[in-house]
């Protein structure tokens, strides 16, 4: 059992203060941690997070979406400050007004693109092809490079607003290069039927890592893309099983084939979690920062379990308001049908239609809010905790020489990502 210091004094004073044991984390290295190894910990709790997410989400709805910049900032502050490395918390210093500004900036640029381009595409696709499928397809394809661009820019902003031990992180400019590479790698991955997926995973991570700074020092991504190949093994097995199942179906063994398909499906789910976690572990272990090393211990089974249990419980959490909404809907429908048939002398005929509509809208939004708050507390938080607790910094003596980096003004913040809705990430 390894100690996870919850505050910066635990190490200095030699006292070992153990985090409340959620469950033992296997050390990445079986040998005892060296003196200069810093251990990650996570101190946040689900309940306060649930209320924070619910409260800020409610304000977002009440302000017609404008509070979302504050909501995002406050949630990030909470998550960042819950992650402690060697007892010292991370800090998120992003500013909501700055996010609003970035969003406005993105609107100025994108409104033109989206308005004019969509109009022209709609015209062209109806004039030339007599249908709007081409327009949707083209405007979707046109947004893909922007999407990768926005992703990189958002990462740059978040890193520029993240601090640890008082020093800023940073990411060098390079969003268009990233977008071009991402497009190329996706094309190769599709053409190779997924065989070059690990190559894409590695190369894109390398592009980002090699441009990442902590203070004035640059991170380095070591290793090579072939080291990620083993991460595909469960997916390969699932595909193989699917092939066998198809064979069984062909030869008439319906029951057996169904069983095999089911098994292949479950294995595929595990395989995807395994790929995600295993590549993350391997990529983290080969990152270095000027002599400081990183290690991550994470379990694919635990990650999969968090997702399954989290979604199940969140689903149960919204089941009650959702069924009330469903009942209300059926009630309004049947009241209308009866009114149509002239049977409006029934007791609820006098009920104001607007009351029902308002009730429906309120219920609809509360389902939204409860769902988002529950998934924060039951999925995002446990996942973050799992990764944070598995993180180690080795050779931390090298940190002493690191100095501050200048502030990255980054006027557009993550406006493009916000406007294009890049991922539902934090």
């Amino acid at each position, binding site marked *: 059992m390894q100690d996870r210091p919850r*505050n910066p004094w635990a190490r200095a004073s030699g006292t070992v203060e153990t985090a409340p044991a959620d469950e033992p984390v296997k050390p990445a290295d079986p040998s005892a941690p060296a003196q200069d190894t810093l251990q990650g910990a996570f101190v946040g709790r689900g309940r306060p997070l649930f209320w924070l997410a619910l409260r800020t989400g409610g304000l977002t709805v009440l302000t017609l979406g404008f509070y979302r910049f504050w909501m995002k900032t406050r949630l990030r502050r909470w998550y960042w*400050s819950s992650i402690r490395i060697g007892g010292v918390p991370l800090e998120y210093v992003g500013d909501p007004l700055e996010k609003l500004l970035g969003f406005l900036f993105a609107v100025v640029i994108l409104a033109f693109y989206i308005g004019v381009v969509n109009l022209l595409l709609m015209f062209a696709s109806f004039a030339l092809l007599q249908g709007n499928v081409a327009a949707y397809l083209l405007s979707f394809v046109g947004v893909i490079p922007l999407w990768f661009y926005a992703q990189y820019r958002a990462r740059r902003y978040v890193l520029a607003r993240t601090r640890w031990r008082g020093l800023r992180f940073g990411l060098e400019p390079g969003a268009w290069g990233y977008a071009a590479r991402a497009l190329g790698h996706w094309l190769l991955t599709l053409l190779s039927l997924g065989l070059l997926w690990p190559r894409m995973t590695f190369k894109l991570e390398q592009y980002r890592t090699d441009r990442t700074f902590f203070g004035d020092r640059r991170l380095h991504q070591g290793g090579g893309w072939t080291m990620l190949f083993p991460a595909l093994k469960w997916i390969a097995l699932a595909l193989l099983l699917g092939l066998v199942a198809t064979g069984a179906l062909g030869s008439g063994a319906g029951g057996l084939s169904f069983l095999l398909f089911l098994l292949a499906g479950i294995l595929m789910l595990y395989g995807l979690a395994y790929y995600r976690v295993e590549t993350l572990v391997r990529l983290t272990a080969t990152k270095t920062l000027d002599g400081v090393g990183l290690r991550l211990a994470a379990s694919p089974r635990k990650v999969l379990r968090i997702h399954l249990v989290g979604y199940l419980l969140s689903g149960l959490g919204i089941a009650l308001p959702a069924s009330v909404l469903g009942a209300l809907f059926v009630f309004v429908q049947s009241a209308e049908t009866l009114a149509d048939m002239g049977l409006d002398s029934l007791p609820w005929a006098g009920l104001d239609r607007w009351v029902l509509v308002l009730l429906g809208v309120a219920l609809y939004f509360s389902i939204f809010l409860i769902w988002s708050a529950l998934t924060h507390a039951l999925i995002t938080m446990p996942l973050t905790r799992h990764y944070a607790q598995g993180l180690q910094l080795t050779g931390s003596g090298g940190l*002493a020489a690191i100095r501050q980096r200048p502030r990255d003004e980054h006027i557009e913040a993550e406006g493009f990502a916000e406007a294009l809705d890049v991922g539902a990430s934090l």
Partner: protein
Amino acid sequence: MTGFETRAIHFDGQSAEPRDIRLQLDPARRSLTGPGVNWPLDEVREVPDQGGADLLILRRADDAVQRLILPDRSLAAQLPRRTAPVPAVQRRQIWIWAAAAVASVALIVFVLVPKMADQLAVFIPPEGERALGEVTLSQIRSALDESGTQSVGFCTAPAGLAALQRMEARLAAAMPEGQPLSVHVLDHKMVNAFALPGGYVVFFRGLIDEAGSPEEVAAVFAHEIGHVVSRDPTRHALRSAGSIGVLGLVFGDFAGGALVLFLAERLIDAQYSQSAEAAADAFAADLLLAAGLPPDALAEMFERFRRLGGDDEGIMAHFMAHPRLGDRIAAARTATPPDFAATPLLNDDEWRALKAICG
């Protein structure tokens, strides 16, 4: 207030090296002091939204990078401005960009997109226009269905369709060649009719139910043909293609945004301009005259709408929304010359068949 002393970790914001120090609250000088630390009490703020409730993390309002980490929160009560806001950077810039964003969206939605749509509507070939109308019609049909699972059906009683075609032929005979028309009745109680790109004219069952004579239906028909001929629906469809994406962009798609987007879409979708309506009325009056039908049937239909107005959400929005309905009624009345002799449109059997088109 007595002196207060605690352990603290100081990060100077210049290096990653933590300094384990003794920190004192100096009541006389109103400051936090320690080796290398001298923070005026009024400048001390707590870093908010902490996930762990154990530590107290402090910053200076006038210094972005220095931090003090205290092992417990006992000092918190003695910091007078602990939760005061830290002045954010560049507030003026926010207003400038907000104005720029509003201006640019307004420019695009209200000027650029309509201008382009007006230009492009002229160039779209007939097949393209028909395809646009077809797609829009199927969208409207599924949007109108209240259960949300299927589309509102067409009314297809053969005798009713025959009567409708007779009406169409009578109006078409008075029109220049080459304008294809395609008329439908939707099985829905709304009192409404609309035109779509590519010559689609669509009546709702509610309108046929309410109409007092075949001439009133023909008058609405002629008005909608007026929109078709001047390509109002095509312009309109192209406009909304450009504008809706932009508004979706502005409001994002979180719950609150979805609601605003829905309302904004309604707003854009509402009406043609006043002049487009007047032009369609004038066109209808001429067409009815040329077809030997009384133009004041349009006035009668308008009056019927006015009487129905208010108690039903299904009232023909694009007729009712215009404040000068009275003027339009008067205009339609004066469009009938004093010596005008109408030729009957449908006989009683045909009129009954049209009324029963939805079965």
